[in-house]
């Protein structure tokens, strides 16, 4: 089953940006303690993102015509892998580079492409994802935020929640209802690009359990948007958001959320000189899972490179990947606590504590474990 997911290798030419990405990432994290690096995905640093843009490391899947690198998903895989392995602060450009840009490329008008894409490639247009609402989490089709046609464009009312990085973003791509009611489900949904500086938009940050405030509530009160805020076709929002989610779910980030902790722990073991059989077996079990996941993630990248939208395959990788990411802090906590005689640096302790607290979110954000398994089951012909 899933025979189309076969072994793939990163093509030779696509590895050439690795050293550059590694160098820039190393510079960005040079002064950062381990626990800040562990925040990688939610580490916001607009300067760093612009630096990546200037170096040609953003928009790698976009055509040159729009300022992209015209390199494809493998080159992006390589760069993203390096940034995450180093724990570089990628949040600022993350969403735009990963999913908003491909969405605009695929569904946008020529004018929209020319307006947004070059700035995304320079790391200057920052995007966030406006899908979830207080009453719509997994059941995304039930969104109630509404956009009505006006003489000059759209008027938006409603609320989004858990919107990562919205406070510092320029734009949100919001899934809204443009006709019908929640009962119409997949019909009548559309996607709008909301300039977050538009009057009527209020953003209220939400503090998370680790004390960070990377996500927010976003309120829309009679927000007037121009006609060309619509991206793609009116009423096609569900199809578009499904394609967008395939980009969101298929990247290497779904296996590397805890990699900074893993490397911190390996450094600890080497420093104290512990490599007995039991420790080695534990280390080996983790690296073996990571190897399998990397092979799966590269195989998935090959499907993207072939122009497919590997929704089911990406769900396989993400579900297995987040389980791995979540098991790491638990196993490492047990290991360290079972060797009380060893000195453990404060940095490593803080990193472990941080990852332990946020790990449950790994299998929530981007679609919950249960939802992903449902998608896989559908791919297996069970529903």
């Amino acid at each position: 089953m899933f025979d189309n997911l076969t072994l793939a290798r990163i093509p030779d030419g696509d590895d050439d940006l690795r050293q550059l990405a590694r160098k820039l990432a190393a510079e960005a994290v040079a002064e950062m303690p381990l626990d800040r690096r562990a925040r990688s995905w939610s580490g916001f640093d607009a300067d760093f993102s612009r630096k990546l843009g200037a170096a040609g490391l953003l928009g790698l899947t976009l055509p040159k015509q729009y300022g992209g690198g015209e390199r494809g998903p493998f080159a992006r895989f390589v760069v993203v892998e390096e940034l995450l392995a180093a724990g570089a602060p990628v949040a600022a450009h993350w969403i735009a580079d990963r999913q908003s840009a491909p969405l605009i490329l695929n569904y946008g008008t020529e004018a929209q492409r020319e307006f947004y894409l070059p700035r995304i490639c320079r790391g200057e247009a920052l995007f966030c994802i406006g899908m979830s609402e207080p009453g719509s989490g997994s059941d995304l089709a039930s969104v109630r935020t509404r956009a009505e046609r006006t003489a000059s464009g759209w008027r938006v009312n409603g609320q989004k929640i858990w919107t990562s990085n919205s406070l510092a973003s320029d734009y949100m791509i919001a899934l809204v209802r443009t006709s019908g009611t929640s009962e119409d489900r997949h019909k009548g949904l559309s996607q709008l690009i909301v300039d977050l500086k538009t009057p009527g938009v209020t953003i209220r940050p939400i503090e998370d359990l680790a004390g960070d405030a990377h996500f927010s509530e976003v309120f829309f009160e009679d927000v007037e948007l121009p006609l060309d805020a619509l991206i793609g076709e009116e009423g096609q929002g569900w199809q578009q958001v499904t394609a967008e989610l395939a980009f969101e779910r298929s990247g290497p980030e779904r296996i590397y959320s805890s990699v900074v902790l893993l490397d911190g722990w390996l450094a600890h073991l080497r420093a104290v000189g512990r490599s007995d059989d039991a420790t080695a077996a534990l280390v080996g079990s983790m690296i073996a899972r990571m190897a399998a996941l990397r092979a799966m993630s590269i195989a998935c990248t090959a499907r993207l490179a072939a122009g497919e939208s590997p929704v089911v395959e990406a769900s396989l990788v993400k579900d297995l990947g987040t389980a791995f990411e979540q098991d790491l802090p638990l196993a490492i906590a047990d290991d360290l606590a079972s060797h009380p005689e060893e000195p453990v640096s404060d940095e490593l302790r803080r990193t472990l504590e941080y990852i332990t607290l946020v790990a449950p979110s790994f299998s929530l954000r981007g679609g919950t474990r249960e939802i992903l398994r449902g998608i896989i089951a559908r791919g297996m012909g069970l529903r």
Partner: protein
Amino acid sequence: METNELLEPFERMLAKLFPPSRVREIDSSAEWQDELAEVEASGFLDILAPEANGGAGLPFSAAIALFAALGRHAAPLGIGRAMLERAGYGEAHSANSELVMLSAMMAGAGDRLLAMTTAYANERVQFGKPIGRQQAVQQNLAVMAEHCVAVRLTVELAGDGSGPPDGLRAALAKSVASTAVPLIANIAHSVHGAIGISAEYDLQLFTRRLHAWRAEQGSESRHHRSLGKSLLAGDAKSVDWLRAEIFDEIA
């Protein structure tokens, strides 16, 4: 590709030679020289043997799909072993290639279990609908599929190359395959209910093999140990180590 052209006739032969009834007899110690003679005559035992020795001289990677087919048909381990023997890889390499062969057979058997279990879930009706319509069953099958794909891709990764795999890749394949066995076998049995426990139902032919092959040449903890020792011995970070030692991305 060469592999696919080989695979189809090979599978056809295995299906003919090793129907479940025959597998049961062989499991009860029946001799299988006739079958072996037929496989010999087909030329498949020589696909890895050097051309100088009258073999086909195919790369190791070409045999992975055939090993998996052996597992999918519950065919005797001896066939794969004979293929490896004739490859003439030398002692250390033989051990590594046997590990990857076993892992590939496990991937094949897992694949067969996944197909059987999914089909059964769509057929068996309880509470007025197929049990596969129950979300709890679907979720378990999804997890089973994830592990089957993980094993298959890891085996393909470990077996990728013209020559026999090195020790680390062999350990990787066998550890990932062995780790997945309890989960795959348990879900397969759980979804099948009591029928899967009966001797005459074919499920047990495959779960029995997975448990035996998990232990053969060392189960997961032993191979995790070698991977862990190697990783801890140097100072490479995890991703760099994987790229260098397993993915062959750093010359």
